């Protein structure tokens, strides 16, 4: 294949950044960095490049560097889990709908369209509002429940996005004659889906999955700004939400989470595009 172009610098950069932040997310707690919960009273509002606090300290006394590392864990954790679960459910629905067609397909497809018609954020917000409130308003909602609710809401956002891609791709593959051939040989439907359709749909899903990670990170951050993000405001979005309050006195508390967030979303989008481009070129040869 002469089309196998070597990767460009931005691709390496994007890959490098995602690897790095994933590393921070996984091994963050093991690094010789103080807990992000430690309050540094002496360094309140310290500017960046202060010795010991290279990213500075916010007005509550939290070290921003520790916050970024901890935030990577939460933001990426939420993003990958929701895209993973949402992608699984979405592609299961999408692929089976495309394969079996008929009534089941129209129901699934309509459901996808209905969910997609509501803007992501509004949908997530509505779900959080419904699921994460107590009947007794005096009783606080436990953190785990708020986190679970948030992730469920984001998953619901992801399901139709990936589901529709999976359905469209599976639809073209189910029309191929090798699927008819497999049926005529007496292959069971679930084997046909598993052996012939899933492997062909998967690469597209992975490429779009990267884009979806970006969507989720942004959605979570936006929810944080609205005050219903990951509890305790420890994600990157949460840091931005907190820092917003004293933008005038301590703007650097915002810079770093914003940069981290932007780099991550740009990287996932870029990698998604690169993967898609490679796939398109490969499909063109088939």
């Amino acid at each position: 294949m002469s089309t196998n172009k070597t990767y460009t610098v931005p691709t390496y950069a994007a890959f490098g950044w995602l690897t790095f932040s994933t590393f921070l997310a996984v091994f963050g707690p093991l690094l010789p960095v103080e807990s992000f919960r430690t309050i540094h009273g002496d360094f309140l509002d310290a500017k960046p490049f202060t010795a010991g606090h290279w990213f500075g300290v916010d007005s509550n006394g939290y070290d921003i560097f520790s916050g970024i590392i901890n935030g990577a864990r939460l933001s990426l954790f939420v993003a990958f889990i929701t895209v993973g679960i949402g992608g699984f459910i979405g592609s299961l629905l999408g692929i089976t709908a495309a394969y079996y067609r008929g009534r089941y397909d129209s129901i699934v497809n309509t459901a996808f369209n209905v969910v997609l018609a509501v803007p992501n954020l509004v949908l997530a917000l509505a779900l959080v509002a419904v699921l994460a409130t107590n009947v007794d308003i005096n009783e606080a909602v436990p953190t785990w429940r708020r986190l679970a609710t948030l992730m469920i809401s984001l998953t619901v956002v992801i399901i139709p996005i990936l589901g529709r891609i999976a359905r469209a791709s599976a639809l073209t593959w189910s029309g191929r004659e090798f699927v008819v051939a497999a049926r005529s040989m007496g292959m069971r439907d679930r084997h046909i889906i598993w052996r012939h359709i899933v492997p062909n749909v998967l690469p597209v899903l992975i490429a779009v999955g990267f884009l979806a990670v970006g969507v989720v990170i942004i959605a979570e951050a936006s929810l944080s700004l609205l005050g219903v993000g990951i509890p305790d405001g420890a994600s990157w979005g949460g840091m931005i939400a907190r820092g917003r309050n004293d933008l005038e006195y301590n703007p650097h508390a915002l810079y770093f989470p914003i940069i981290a967030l932007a780099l991550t979303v740009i990287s996932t989008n870029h990698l998604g595009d690169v993967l898609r481009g490679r796939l398109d070129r490969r499909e063109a040869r088939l």
Partner: protein
Amino acid sequence: MAGSGYAHLRDSDDVVLALRDIVVEFRVGGGRVVNAVSRISIDVRRGETLAIVGESGCGKTTLGKAILQLPAPNTGQVMFEGTDLTKLPKEQLRSARTAIQMVFQDPISSLDPRMTVGEIVGEPLWIWGRGSEADREAKVRELLNNVGLDPELVLHRRSYEFSGGQCQRISIARSLALEPRMLICDEPVSALDVSIQAQILNLLQDMKDRYGLTMVFISHDLAVVKAVSNRIMVMYLGKICEVGSPDAIYSKPAHHYTSALLDSVPVPDPAYQRNNVALQGEPPSPVAPPTGCRFRTRCPAASPLCAAEEPLLREVAPDQFVACHHPRL
């Protein structure tokens, strides 16, 4: 339409496949219905090759797939070796199908691009758990050898590395893996170069002899069909026009449509003069087929009778049946 009718059906013990009043309809948007196959009855004897010939959209492929119940016909019987496939429960149908296999038109689309040739040809054996892994590989090698491919060279490569003709050989090897008794070939050579067509046609003949197959051969080209078939059925808009032996049909076609099809085959001789005007226009929509004889809108011999009444198949010469009010004979 040509027409319906049962005059051409044969009553003998060696009829392997008997289709009776097959109807296949598809719903298209707006509540309209495409009459892809309208009450077709035909039978195939053991060891025979039935060619189904007609233009795109005449329902020939749909009829071929209806034999395998992919999808099943809306109404009608598909009697294969005495069993009506349309009445079989799902599990029994699954195993009954293995006796009938299919070779498709598009050699590229009929092979999974992600699988190696070994996996593709071995897949039917894997599905049915035939033999051990080693047995299966030996069988795959044998099959590849039989279709003229070198197992050593092709076993671990993927389909997109091969030419159309080679892909069609792989596809034929796969269709023979379960040792079927009947092979349905859906335009197996129309996507290939002329020079390769002959190779594949010969290969199919060889495989038919070697495995004792009964064949249904679907094509739009009467020339391609000539070499391989014992019986010809010409279809137009979901109906039978003419059925009979190749000798009769090629030398004196009785239906005006058959004769038009024969005339449009390109002749590799610059001095050749066509004796008839080529068939004009295209078939009307199968959503609203013409009344009476479906071919009448393009037929040079059409009369008011053709619009009023559907012609039934009747014998015009020994083993030659035609559905036409004004046959050429």
